[in-house]
């Protein structure tokens, strides 16, 4: 049976209040997406790969300091600044709201990363290497990126495609919860929620309707597809209430 697939638009809700900064998402992402290990020398060179990372910011002055965690990943902007500047169309927007990177097209001008307000793109300065033991542990669904090209978070597009194939085989639509990106799957506090906004049943609508919602650097007009829910600070609220 041939049917036109339903329109999709993938989004993610990141509840900063639930994030404990445990970095499980970071590890899951590295394992899922064949990201080479960030060695000490990579850090020294400032060339680490972290498609998702937990940025830690301190708030307040000592001794009243609070650590704030901000999970950072490609925002898959509807109006992505990285896309128009690529001379070879190596990055473009697909019809599911994903900002995709075509590794074979990329020539490595690095213009996209310069124009990304979220530092979400990573350049392969070296040929990626893994320890010998890891040779059979790479994910066969994900391309290993060679030297000289850009890469970034794909919203685990390989999982989306696999879920679509499975659904097609069972002659049904992709349902919410059929799959999750690696980061959302690994998150112990369910701070990351991924879903299709065109699907009214999706769990993501709960987060999208939240009053705490904000998006990063929204004033730039990039229309990010990652929505954040701000921190609930009970102490700050109390202090404000007492004042």
């Amino acid at each position: 049976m041939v049917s036109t697939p339903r329109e999709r638009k993938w989004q993610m809700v990141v509840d900063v209040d639930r994030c404990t900064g445990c970095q499980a998402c970071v590890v899951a992402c590295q394992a899922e997406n064949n990201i080479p290990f960030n060695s000490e020398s990579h850090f020294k060179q400032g060339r680490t790969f972290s498609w998702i990372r937990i940025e830690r910011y301190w708030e307040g002055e000592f001794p009243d300091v609070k650590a704030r965690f901000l999970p950072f990943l490609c925002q898959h902007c509807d109006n992505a600044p990285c896309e128009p500047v690529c001379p070879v169309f190596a990055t473009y927007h697909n019809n599911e709201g994903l900002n995709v990177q075509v590794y074979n097209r990329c020539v490595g001008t690095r213009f996209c990363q310069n124009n990304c307000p979220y530092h979400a793109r990573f350049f392969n300065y070296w040929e990626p290497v893994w320890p010998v033991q890891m040779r059979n542990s790479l994910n066969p669904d994900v391309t290993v990126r060679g030297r000289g090209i850009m890469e970034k978070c794909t919203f685990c597009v390989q999982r989306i495609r696999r879920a679509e194939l499975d659904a097609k085989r069972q002659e049904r639509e992709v349902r919410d919860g059929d799959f999750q990106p690696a980061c959302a799957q690994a998150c112990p506090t369910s701070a990351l929620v991924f879903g299709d906004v065109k699907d009214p049943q999706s769990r993501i609508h709960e987060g999208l309707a939240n009053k705490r919602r904000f998006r990063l650097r929204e004033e730039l007009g990039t229309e990010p597809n990652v929505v954040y829910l701000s921190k609930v600070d009970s102490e700050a609220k109390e202090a404000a209430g007492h004042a």
Partner: protein
Amino acid sequence: MQQRVVLPQPQVNAELLKNALRAPLWYWGIMAFLGAIVVAGSVAVGFLMNKGFGLSGTNRPVMWGILIVDFVFWIGISHAGVMLSAILRLSKAEWRRPATRAAEVLTVFSLMIAALHPVVHAGRPWRIIYWSFPYDFSRGLWVNIRSPLIWDPSAIFTYLTGSALFVIVALIPDMAVIRDHTTGLKQKVYRALAMGWRGTPRQWKLQIVAGFLLSALLLPVFVSVHSIVSWDFAVMIGVEGYHVTIFAPYFVIGAVHSGVSAVVTMMILMKWMFGWGSYIREEHVESLAKLLIVIGTTWLYFFFVEFSFALYSMESQEIALREMQAFTWPYWPLALTFILFSYIIPIPLWLFRKVRRNFKIMFWTSLLVNIGMWLERFLIIVPSLARKQVWPFDWSTYHPSAIEVLIVVTAYALVFLLLMTFAKLFPLIPLFDIKEGQTLSDDIVIGKRRVPALRVEE
């Protein structure tokens, strides 16, 4: 001007063709030295491509390093040619004559070298060639014309084609002179290059008309080239120091500032190297210095406007960036050197007639301008990237690696090498233009002296 000696034409030929026909020993010494640097640089580029761009000092987020700085710098230098040849030809400034060819040739070579920089700087340069030659019509894979990196080559190659034509049109009469002074294989080559030039009135008319037409056509291209290069930066919404609307005119006038200074440096070098004292005279350098005072001051105005616009917005990020550019280590010494070298030292000095007519001081001060302007591009490109956006977690810094420095040095050696090769093959001062200038000048008698004077054309 009154003391000008009118040289007989055979002497003009002999002196200006001296290097082209019989190069001295030191010439080959310089060529060998430059060649060695270029070989070393080529090895460095090969190494970079073989091992990966990790050999550079760039990182995340400072993805662009001194190779891009150098790219903007060389594009800037290339603005000298049209500024001097076209504008001065159209405005019939007599003193342009010995400077035009040097400026045009500098334009062509610096453009060629500039265009190499982004290619070397890319992660997979071989892919750029793969996507471009032959153009991939069969699969319908088009380039992204929204990207400034597509506008760039379009502008650069238009300018390169135009200025190469400009050089060739002006070379034809001189080719004929060399043809008549050589024998054997050399003569055959120059005969082909002279394209049947006989010096008939009709040929002269066509040559002059072509020169004027090309001047007029190249002017808009010249303004567009650096505007487009500035848009590489100005379109970037993600970087605070970049997306500024004033960038296009600011870059163009900065380019003219550095380009004309480079022509001054080059003319004085030519005078010293080839002993062309009777062609490149004090009055030429003086006129160029006067022009530079105007250009430099206009550039300074744009610089202040750009800086004060940034502060006027009262955006904390923008102000923090400016503060870093001007007051933080290691940028403040660079910023200080930049403003001292590109304006504060040279321009007030050039206000004095004695300085303007002194070749040594003019040589060093015009060199200072270009050091300053190189630093200006560095200060625009690197600090803005190092402090990109409000995420201090990702901020970084940048130290150029030895390989990058070597490649930058090679670019200078390569331009110099190409210029020297040109000087061996063709006269760097247009013979016909000098002779034309002499014919247009008339002797006038003041008291007991016969004094040559310029006839003013109507």
